[in-house]
Structures are given as C-alpha cells and as structure tokens.
C-alpha cells in the first residue's frame, strides 16, 4: 500500500460526505449539529471501510461481495447507533443510515465504473 492510497481515502471520504450530506438535505434535515455529527461519523467509518476493503481483498482472497456486504452492514449499524444516541432531529436513525449509505455506495459504484 503506497502513498496514492491516501488519495483514494481522501477522495472517497470527500465524495461520501458530499453525497450523504446532500441526500440528508434533500430528505429534509436542517439541523446544523446533525450535519456536523454526520460529517464526523463519516470520518469514523468511511476511511476504515475503504482501508479494510483493500486489506481484506488483498490478504484473504475472500469473495469481494461478501467483504463489501460485511463492511457496509457494519458501517450502517455503527452510524445508525451514533445517530440514535447523539442526533437531535434524525427520527429513524438506522433507516436514515441505510438510506445515506446505500445512496453513497451506489453513486460511488457508478462513478468508479465511469472512471
């Protein structure tokens, strides 16, 4: 793993923040503290998911779909738990986490195929 992987992490985090915060706004979220919370939760989960995905794929030879499914599920659960405990205006935290993650993952997948 070399220096360019840091760029991968940063680009991935930047795009995820953009997409998830944008979707949250579209879904009606207006609370500034919840936006800050979302941004920080993404800093916790996104680089970890990208890094673990790369490491597990290279080192274990496990099925890539299984790795992604496991990591994305973990991210949804962790983010949902944080929203449940700390968010002010997110009423259905786990559903909200599922929606934002599904959206950013799908858009990310489309972008990576285009690039």
């Amino acid at each position, binding site marked *: *793993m*070399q220096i360019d992987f*840091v760029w991968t992490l940063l680009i991935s985090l930047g795009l995820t923040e953009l997409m998830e915060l944008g979707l949250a706004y579209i879904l009606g979220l207006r609370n500034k*503290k919840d936006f800050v919370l979302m941004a*920080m939760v993404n*800093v916790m989960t996104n680089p970890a998911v990208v890094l673990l995905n790369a490491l597990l794929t290279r080192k274990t030879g496990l099925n890539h779909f299984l790795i992604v499914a496991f990591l994305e599920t973990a991210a949804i659960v962790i983010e949902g738990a944080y929203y449940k405990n700390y968010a002010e205006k997110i009423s259905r935290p786990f559903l909200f986490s599922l929606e934002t993650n599904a959206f950013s993952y799908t858009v990310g997948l489309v972008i990576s195929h285009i690039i």
Partner: protein
Amino acid sequence: MKQHKTNRIVGLIFICSMLVSLLSGFAIADVIWEPEDNFYRAHMEDCTYVNRDYYANGESGYLELFTQPGGKSLGFSENGKLFHVQFSYTLGNEVWGVVEYGSEGNRLVPRSDGDYESAWINLKDTKLKYDAVSFEEDHQAELTSYTGDYSELKDIQNIVIWTFPNSGEISGSFDQIDENFIIDSQYKDINGTLWGHVSYYYASKNFWICISKPTDTNIPAKDLPVIAFNSPSPDADPQPTGNDMTTAIIICVAAAILISAVQIYLSNKKKKKNEK
C-alpha cells in the same frame, strides 16, 4: 463500364475489411499489434519490439506486476505463468516488458481477452520461453539452404506447421500449398528428420514444417531446456516493493476514528451540561 463497377465493389470490400480489422485490433500481414498502455504510448519511441513469451520466475516465488517500469505495484503472479511480452523498455540497467493480465482471486494471471489490463514486468524476474528465435540462435550453423524439389509436399493435404523443429508445438496447418510456398532453409535433426523453414506464406510468418513427415501431428517435443522455477516460501505472502505505507495508513485511519469518536462524545457531554 462493367469492369469499372467491379473494381469499385472490390475496392469498397477492401476498404471495409481494412476498417473492420483496424477496429477489432486484428493485425493483417505486417501490422504490429500495440498494447493499450499509457506508459507505452508516451514512450513508444524508446520501446523495442519483442513479441516473445516469458515465464514468471521471481526470486520470492512470485512475479510482481507494475503500472509502469519502476512504478506502483499491481500485485503478484505465481511463478511458472507464461506472459507474452510485446514490447520492452530499458530503465537504467533493467529491461522491462509490457504484458496483459487479469485477476484470479488475489493473484494476477496472464490474460489477453475478456477483462484484462496492461502492466509492466521486470524481465530479470522471468525466464524466456525457448522459442523459434532461440532455436535459430542455437542451430544457426546447422541450417542449410533447401536443395529439394518439393516432391515430398506435392499433393499432400493438411501440412502441419510447427513453431520450430521438435518443439512439439503446432501453430496450424495448410490444406494444400501452391507455388508461393518457398522453403528458405532446412535443418536435419539427430534422428535424420528433415525440417524446412518458411519465412512467409499467405500471412503466416516464420514457421517450420517437417519435410520428412509433413502431415504427422504427433511429433513430440525433444531436447527442450527444462526450467527450474523459484518456489515461494511456505506461508509467506509476497510483499510489494516500494515504500509500503500500510502501517502508517492504518495508524492514520485509527487516529481519525478515535479523534472523531472523542469529539462526538465531548460535544454531547458539553450539550448535556448546557441543558442542565
């Protein structure tokens, strides 16, 4: 008028077939296939045409593939896999070859159709496959001009084409040959079997036929050099060369998680305090 029309149709068919072959990447006659590779495109003036096969044979038991000569590691292929090197590039004292590969699990494998990409390999981590060029280098002194009258090949069907004498490797066959079939040199092996080399015949280049047994498809490989491949150490995964930053990246990501978690916790604590 009729002749003019026929010429136009023939010309049109020729242009169409040229366009189709160019679009599909298929090479007609002396057109050399070029790899779809950014480094090759940028340095094609400095690249040398190779068109030979190399076995992966890295010291660690694996061959490492790179984005470009001296570039980023893409992964590893197991020793013994056969890569086709179309062009080479010299970087310092090292010769690098451009290859095509695909993935199988966490290993890279030679692949030239379907889902494949280009990569560069350091040829010091390979073994050249013994081929027609090697044969001609080794047997130059034993090659003589063909003195026969083609009587052995007259009215023979399915003449077998070999990569070189006693290679055991068939590269095709001819239903029948005509007056354009010219044997430019011959070679007699230790068993007295006579072979003929043909430089060019209807788009087929540099091949051999067995003059003594032109239709025999069962001539086995003989006296080919045996390659001893380096074996990987048991339970040791190959490590990419270059500056490995895995540990540093893991520490940074862990730090990001920790800082964010603490920040969220502290913000919440402050909020609760203010509420009280």
